[in-house]
């Protein structure tokens, strides 16, 4: 059976080591937080200047001075710290985050990431912190469906969309399989409702078990 989005998020959460400092990208990656065990000691970073971010705020807890990178009101956990944007991105760029989780349009076999721009001529470019996260975290995890709506694979020999970062992706979580990007090529870690041979037949990328 292929994974639901929620199952993918749970899978990512399972692989995050206790005590890790983690940044979850806007959109789908944000849902990973719902699957992190409160006792794991995982500390969430938000690029807009906070460590120790808690769940989304509701009701009276909504404070417009306290939002995540997606501008959604969030909460503060004990042990939180605030800092300004230059310090926040120094933390990212300097390699201090253990993990970041990002969505993607495409990932190449060499770990190149494309997730900020479709390349459409009329699209308004907007990058946010994606490029900083892509090159900064010790481990970059991607969550995406393996195939686009038109059926084309999103794990590709070389990205055709504009790049976010070069050779930065370590692992790709998809609805059909989890892949490790290694110096020796793309390795399949797990498949869901499909065999590695079947996957190989549908991808233009060499994959091994």
């Amino acid at each position, binding site marked *: 059976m292929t994974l639901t989005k929620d199952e993918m998020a749970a899978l990512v959460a399972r692989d995050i080591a206790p005590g890790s400092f983690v940044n979850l990208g806007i959109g789908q990656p944000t849902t990973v937080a719902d699957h992190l065990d409160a006792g794991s000691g995982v500390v969430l970073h938000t690029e807009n*200047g906070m460590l120790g971010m808690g769940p989304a705020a509701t009701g009276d807890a909504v404070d*417009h001075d306290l*939002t995540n990178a997606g501008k959604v009101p969030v909460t503060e956990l004990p042990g939180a710290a605030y800092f300004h944007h230059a310090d926040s991105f120094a933390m990212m760029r300097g390699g201090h985050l253990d993990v970041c989780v990002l969505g993607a349009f495409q990932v190449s076999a060499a770990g190149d990431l494309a997730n900020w721009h479709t390349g459409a001529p009329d699209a308004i470019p907007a990058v946010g912190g994606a490029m900083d996260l892509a090159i900064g975290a010790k481990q970059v995890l991607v969550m995406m469906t393996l195939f686009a709506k038109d059926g084309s694979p999103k794990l590709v020999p070389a990205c055709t969309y504009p790049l976010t970062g070069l050779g930065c992706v370590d692992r790709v979580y998809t609805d059909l399989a989890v892949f490790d990007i290694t110096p020796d090529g793309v390795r399949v870690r797990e498949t869901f409702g499909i065999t590695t041979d079947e996957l190989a037949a549908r991808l233009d990328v060499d994959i091994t078990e």
Partner: protein
Amino acid sequence: MTAFFEGATGAEEALVDVADGATVLVGGFGMAGMPVDLIDALIRQGATDLTVVSNNAGNGDTGLAALLAKGRVRKVVCSFPRQSDSWVFDGLYRDGRIELDVVPQGNLAERMRAAGAGIGAFFCPTGVGTPLAEGKETREIDGRTYVLEYPIKGDVALIGAHRADRAGNLVYRKTARNFGPVMATAATTVVAQVSDVVDTGELDPEAVVTPGIYVDRVVSR
């Protein structure tokens, strides 16, 4: 020494010398930390042909979006113009009536920090091999490739803070801190909008985020 102003009239007074063609750094990440009163005053003040440096390019129809709607902004330098409620910017951009310089968010912050810290340029790993680094100087240092990035300096910075003392020291609230402290170092004239002003000595010197040396004018509500 920091000058103090109050209310809407005070805000206008504090911005009286913003010139046409100025580069204006505008704090905030979405609406958190956005100095809405100062932007409203800037709209009334009338300066035009502005370059605005801010993380986003306006939300809804107020604040930065209203300034854009008035046609006062020639160019926006930001990391993320496209948002669900950025219709004002989107329209101007598609009509070719505004320039856009997209900068990765960390580079935006670090380039302003460099301006404030007297750094002439810096080699940064962000964006290497991407369209945003095209045409820029690169260098390999210790086996890693870096792009050379230059400072972004403002004529004026408009920032939102939580509280000021009479010495101009500022503290912020939660993630509304964001770009404020960096922008305060990077502009010739720094104007802060705050919720309240306390006597000098009432802020904890260990917890001051922006020392008064960086703050020229404070506008309280």
